[in-house]
């Protein structure tokens, strides 16, 4: 009865939402702005948003400033500096998932569920690695032929044709592949925070595998692989849309689908060990340099600016969350400041290659304040149980960042002007990217959950939930 959820009411609710979202989407696609306002921006930024496919035909001088360090070679050669940075960026983005995210989440749940969370994150990293290697990378990054606006092709299944000397821009393709692999690993892992303490482990495995292929890979292709959103000029430097909005929406749908934890919201479910969460949040911050500055795909001025923007925005968001909380709840909390930091990191992700320190500062402040309210009073008012606020931080933070990228983009930094430099169309373009992602992600996630529920049932039984997932699903506990 619990294992396999009945979903009559929920299904109706979802159908309504989905329909509404579709209408919005249709409106946007069909509306004039897509052709007019965004055109200029699109032209400018298309080459930016496709930077990950830089291994393509013509050796375009990716970022203007990159030239300083690289010269304008007639043909692509390996740059050891760029390669050095990208290998390291890969390593530290992996560190973001394990142990970073695993600890951040693990510390926030109750003691009886900490190992289950760690297990889920660790397993997801392993599963996504093999899936990305087998088929994900190919579907995301190669040319999809007739379907290229929506999805790539099968040319590089199991990395066919990629050898030690295959380059992607100035770095080995093996490095680009592994770098992107770490993104594909962390995105699904982010979702587990939403249904912590109540989802079956087998269901997590199945859900995540389906989700990677059906949601993450297409959206990656739309934004970075030459799909329709990159054609439309949507800016997403390091994954505000692909990673965070995607994960946030999936999290929201999943936590509503699964229902609240037993005892929510009257029982005390405060974090059992914030020390773990602080370690995790700190590693996320450090690793995010790899995420954001690494998305420049080289050791150059763009990477430097991305790092700078990341640092400023994160600090601003952490402090703004902390101070707002201090005012509203009378005490500044560890949970608050680290949540704010993550919110800032999320929000600056799409923006970090396009804005300067000043823009980063405001994006950070906005993210800290807005995510605070979305994860506290607004969440409480709406009544869903997103255990670790994946939606409130990644979803909302991602949206705030995506929109403000359109506001604060500086032409001298990333090649595209934003609202403040007189290009209001970019904001609409950004919203279009957000809506498209939300619609697809919400629908597909919902369907995947239904399938998973039919296959193995998504939710553990009540006694298992009350006694804890650690001992029941994995036979282990923390002393």
């Amino acid at each position, binding site marked *: 009865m619990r294992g396999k959820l009945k979903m009559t009411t929920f299904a109706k609710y979802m159908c309504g939402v989905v329909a509404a979202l579709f209408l919005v989407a249709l409106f946007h696609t069909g509306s004039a702005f897509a052709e007019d306002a965004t055109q200029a921006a699109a032209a400018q930024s298309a080459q930016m948003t496709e930077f990950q496919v830089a291994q393509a035909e013509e050796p375009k001088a990716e970022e203007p400033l990159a030239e300083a360090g690289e010269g304008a070679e007639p043909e692509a050669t390996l740059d050891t500096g760029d390669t050095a940075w990208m290998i390291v960026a890969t390593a530290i983005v992996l560190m973001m998932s394990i142990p970073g995210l695993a600890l951040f989440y693990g510390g926030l749940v109750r003691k009886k569920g900490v190992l289950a969370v760690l297990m889920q994150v660790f397993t997801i990293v392993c599963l996504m690695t093999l899936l990305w290697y087998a088929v994900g990378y190919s579907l995301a990054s190669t040319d999809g032929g007739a379907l290229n606006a929506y999805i790539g092709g099968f040319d590089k299944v199991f990395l066919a044709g990629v050898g030690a000397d295959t380059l992607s821009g100035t770095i080995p393709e093996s490095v680009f592949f592994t770098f992107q692999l770490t993104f594909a690993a962390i995105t699904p892992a982010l979702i587990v925070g939403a249904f912590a303490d109540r989802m079956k482990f087998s269901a997590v495995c199945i859900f995540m595998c389906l989700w990677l292929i059906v949601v993450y890979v297409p959206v990656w292709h739309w934004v970075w692989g030459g799909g329709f959103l990159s054609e439309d000029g949507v800016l997403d430097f390091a994954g505000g849309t692909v990673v965070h909005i995607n994960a946030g929406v999936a999290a929201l749908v999943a936590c509503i689908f699964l229902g609240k934890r037993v005892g929510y919201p009257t029982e*005390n479910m405060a*974090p059992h060990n914030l020390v773990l969460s602080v370690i995790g949040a700190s590693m996320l911050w450090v690793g995010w340099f790899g995420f954001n500055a690494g998305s420049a795909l080289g050791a150059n001025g763009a990477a430097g600016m991305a790092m700078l923007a990341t640092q400023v925005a994160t600090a601003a968001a952490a402090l703004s969350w902390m101070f707002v909380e201090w005012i509203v*709840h009378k*005490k500044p909390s560890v949970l608050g400041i680290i949540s704010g930091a993550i919110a800032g990191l999320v929000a600056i992700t799409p923006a970090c290659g396009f804005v300067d320190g000043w823009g980063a500062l405001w994006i950070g402040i906005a993210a800290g304040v807005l995510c605070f309210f979305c994860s506290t*009073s607004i*969440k409480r008012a709406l009544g869903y149980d997103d255990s670790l606020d994946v939606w409130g931080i990644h979803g909302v933070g991602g949206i705030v960042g995506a929109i403000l990228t359109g506001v604060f983009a500086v032409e001298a930094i990333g090649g595209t002007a934003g609202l403040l430099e007189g290009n209001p169309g970019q904001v609409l373009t950004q919203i279009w990217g957000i809506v498209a992602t939300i619609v697809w992600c919400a629908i597909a996630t919902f369907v995947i959950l239904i399938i998973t529920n039919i296959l193995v049932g998504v939710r553990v039984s009540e006694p298992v939930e009350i006694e804890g997932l650690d001992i029941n699903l994995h036979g282990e506990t923390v002393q």
Partner: protein
Amino acid sequence: MKLVMAIIKPFKLDEVRQALTELGLQGMTVTEVKGYGRQKGHTEIYRGAEYAVNFLPKIKIEVVVPATVVENAVDAIVAAAKTGQIGDGKIFVVPVEQTVRIRTGETNDSAL
């Protein structure tokens, strides 16, 4: 012999231990417990939800004393553990019928 069982505020442990030692009591056993009482816990705020924390950390001291010393022991504990603030705790006296020192097999008062 009586078992004097006192629930006190954690930070008073050391003073109570000293007071009892001064009475010549050379042994006691201490447990970390959680107490529910008139003293209400704080409310904790966590991501916008407010939970009342009902159980507060307390220390339980168990000391078995000869019947003749009970009065003094209770008084000593009260004196040492009192802050005058709500939540100072309780003392309960329970009869003990037999005592054995495991090391030597001594029994009753001489085992204390």
